């Protein structure tokens, strides 16, 4: 291996082309951004519970700041946490290891992808410091609010360019470019670099799902990139693509946004579901239930994902008959995902279940997502959506889907693969504490807010004093309860941080295959060296051969004849 000669620090850690280092860069960056997003959440949740009071560690919060914090919180959690951690992070760590190759197909492109992503994060954070502050018109960026430059209504080119909205568009555009570059890499690597014997249906499901997510992303993002160009031109150069006074149409942007926005949910969901598909069989000692069908179900949902977008616009003034069409589409697309979750649950039946940490996160994921999915029934119904749209019901619904997806999915993966990629083990007690507190406090934060939503409390409101039923009484109490839950939820994450720091300061003591799993990454050393495998392993069987009758051991690694 070329590891024998010394690589400088810059080449090893900053501009490394090694997929594991890039995966780590993406993950660390995602976690840092999650800290920013979480801090923003703390600020506006504190404000919601105790309106008008000085916020510890921050100070007073004005309405404009409130709006931009809510907006940027959403942006960060989706595009700078979910995407880098789930798609880029998992993809980089797992794909080459699991298909049995040394690195990505285009390592340099991979490195550039991360640095473009890094730049996009810098631009996003810089937008807090421009005059007028970061964009505060909601993460959906609907024009004309976003097209007007939001705060800066100055025709001056430079001030429009340096406004919160144009910086946000720029940052998102760069983030898309980074993820597109990553996606090209994932697809080509999976297509071309599989080791001998790794046929399509011997590829672990998580690799399938990351690739399907990459395809969905690439297919759906194009029109939004076009739409973002038009929006940026509207903001900076004064065109009127979305300005009705000049013949434009603001609804056009909504269509372009949600044509991407809904599939984006699956881009975030599929990699995490893939992680569950790896974790659950290992700790049930059973083959994944209906592996091949799960591939087909995800492919089906990928196709369907582009025909449901307008369910976000039921009350936006689109043709009511169109709404029926999209309502049916929404119902149909829920079927493959229900199938995926049911198959995960079926994997448990007849197993020999071990409640190790990754498994707990996986089970918690399913339990929470169940609530998120079932509340989706209410919103998929276009008539009830007339009432529930833009209320806390929607906010709570998507936090019950995205929080388990992003965080439970990430932690399941983290506790599962951390020994492999760092070579170190984590403290089990702290891990359990972290899981149970996160699970409880998440529910404290969110469950009560369903009732606020059903009471018709509308979202993105800095101060409910104008609405007597929400500025006092039970719904205000719920807000307080939720905020306390959120603060505890954030504090709980320090347990995780301490655990990681503690284990990183210890010696490398992880064994090659601590969970007795079958896929190829467990064949490599912990941590895997540059190049991953001394000799590329040959694959003889599918990824989920657990408890095969007649075998002495209850697992058969993929490279075992």
């Amino acid at each position, binding site marked *: 291996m070329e590891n024998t000669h010394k690589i400088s620090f810059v080449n090893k850690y900053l501009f490394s082309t090694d997929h594991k280092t890039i995966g780590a860069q993406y993950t660390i960056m995602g976690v840092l951004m999650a800290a920013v997003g979480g801090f923003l959440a703390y600020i506006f949740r504190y404000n919601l519970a105790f309106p008008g009071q000085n916020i510890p560690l921050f100070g007073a919060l004005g309405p404009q700041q409130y709006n931009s914090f809510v907006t940027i919180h959403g942006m960060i959690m989706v595009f700078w946490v979910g995407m880098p951690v789930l798609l880029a992070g998992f993809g980089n760590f797992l794909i080459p290891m699991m298909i049995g190759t040394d690195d990505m*197909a*285009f390592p340099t*492109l991979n490195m550039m992808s991360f640095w473009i992503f890094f730049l996009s994060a810098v631009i996003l954070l810089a937008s807090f410091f421009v005059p007028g502050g970061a964009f505060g018109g909601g993460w959906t960026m609907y024009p004309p609010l976003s097209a007007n430059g939001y705060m800066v209504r100055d025709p001056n080119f430079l001030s429009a360019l340096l406004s919160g909205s144009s910086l946000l568009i720029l940052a998102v555009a760069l983030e898309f470019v980074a993820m*597109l570059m990553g*996606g*090209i*890499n994932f*697809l*080509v690597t999976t*297509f*071309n*670099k*599989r080791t001998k014997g*790794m046929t399509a249906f011997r590829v672990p499901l998580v690799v399938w799902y990351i690739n399907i997510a990459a395809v969905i992303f*690439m*297919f759906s*993002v*194009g*029109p*939004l*990139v*076009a*739409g973002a*160009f*038009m929006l940026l*031109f509207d903001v900076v*150069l*004064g*065109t*009127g*693509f979305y300005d009705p006074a*000049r*013949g*434009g*149409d603001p609804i*056009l942007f909504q269509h*372009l946004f949600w044509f991407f926005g809904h599939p984006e949910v699956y881009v975030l969901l599929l990699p995490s579901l893939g992680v569950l598909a790896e974790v659950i069989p290992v700790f049930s000692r059973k083959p994944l239930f209906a592996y091949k069908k799960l591939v087909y179900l995800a492919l089906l949902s990928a196709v369907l994902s582009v025909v449901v977008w307008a369910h976000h616009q039921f009350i936006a003034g689109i043709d009511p008959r169109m709404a029926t069409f999209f309502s049916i589409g929404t119902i149909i697309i829920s079927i493959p995902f229900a199938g995926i979750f049911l198959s995960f649950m079926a994997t448990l039946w007849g197993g020999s279940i071990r409640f190790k940490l990754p498994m707990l996160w996986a089970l918690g994921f399913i339990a929470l997502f169940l609530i998120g999915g079932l509340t989706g029934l209410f919103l998929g119904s276009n008539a009830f959506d007339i009432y529930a749209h833009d209320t806390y019901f929607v906010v709570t619904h998507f936090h019950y889907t995205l929080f388990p997806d992003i965080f439970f999915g990430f932690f399941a993966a983290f506790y599962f693969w951390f020994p492999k990629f760092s070579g170190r083990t984590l403290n089990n007690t702290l891990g359990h504490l972290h899981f149970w507190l996160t699970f409880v406090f998440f529910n404290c934060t969110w469950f009560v807010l369903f009732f606020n939503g059903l009471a018709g409390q509308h979202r993105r409101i800095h101060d409910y004093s104008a609405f007597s039923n929400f500025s006092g009484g039970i719904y205000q109490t719920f807000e307080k309860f939720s905020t306390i839950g959120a603060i505890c939820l954030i504090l709980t994450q320090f347990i995780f941080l301490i655990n990681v720091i503690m284990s990183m300061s210890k010696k490398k003591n992880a064994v090659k295959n601590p969970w007795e799993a079958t896929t190829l990454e467990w064949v490599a050393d912990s941590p895997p060296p540059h190049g991953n495998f001394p000799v590329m392993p040959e694959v003889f069987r599918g990824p989920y051969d657990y408890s095969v009758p007649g075998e002495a051991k209850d697992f058969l690694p993929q490279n075992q004849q």
Partner: protein
Amino acid sequence: MSNKEINLEISHVPQGRLGLWILIAGELMIFGGLIACYLLYRIRFPEWANDAAHTSTLIGAINTIVLLSSSFTVVKAHEAAQKRDYKNITKYMTITIFCGLLFLVFKSIEYITEIHEGHTLVSSEFFSFYFLMTGLHGLHVVAGMVTMLVVMLGARKGENLHRVELAGMYWHMVDLIWIFLFPLLYIAK
């Protein structure tokens, strides 16, 4: 060709070509989105035809011919690369780059006349689309030319010959997009 240059792997598609196909698919989705938006507006507002009347079909047609012939020369360059005929690679790629340059010159002449006549990015919705779409396409032409130049400088010395084909594929895409833009912006009046 040596095995190192064209890396035949499991899918039997060289990975550079596979990656580029995906990139092209992504680019087409971007332009597809723009064109779809433009079409939706055109159908809704027939009066845009009045603005469309001010684009120069003649220059547009000349530019179409220029780009089409450059597509031909780039195919020739690819053929030369397969024969390892360095001289012809250089020749045909230079012609291609020159065609790109010619395209840009014509395009600039068009832009200047239009702006002189008062048709700017902000003057009307049609011209907003016109400048956005042709401008974005123009940037792709420039990107294609730069790629072509870099590839040519290497191929001249016999390095990375497979890249000639890749640069050509990208150039074909730039061409293809223009084939869509030309009727939509120049002919439909």
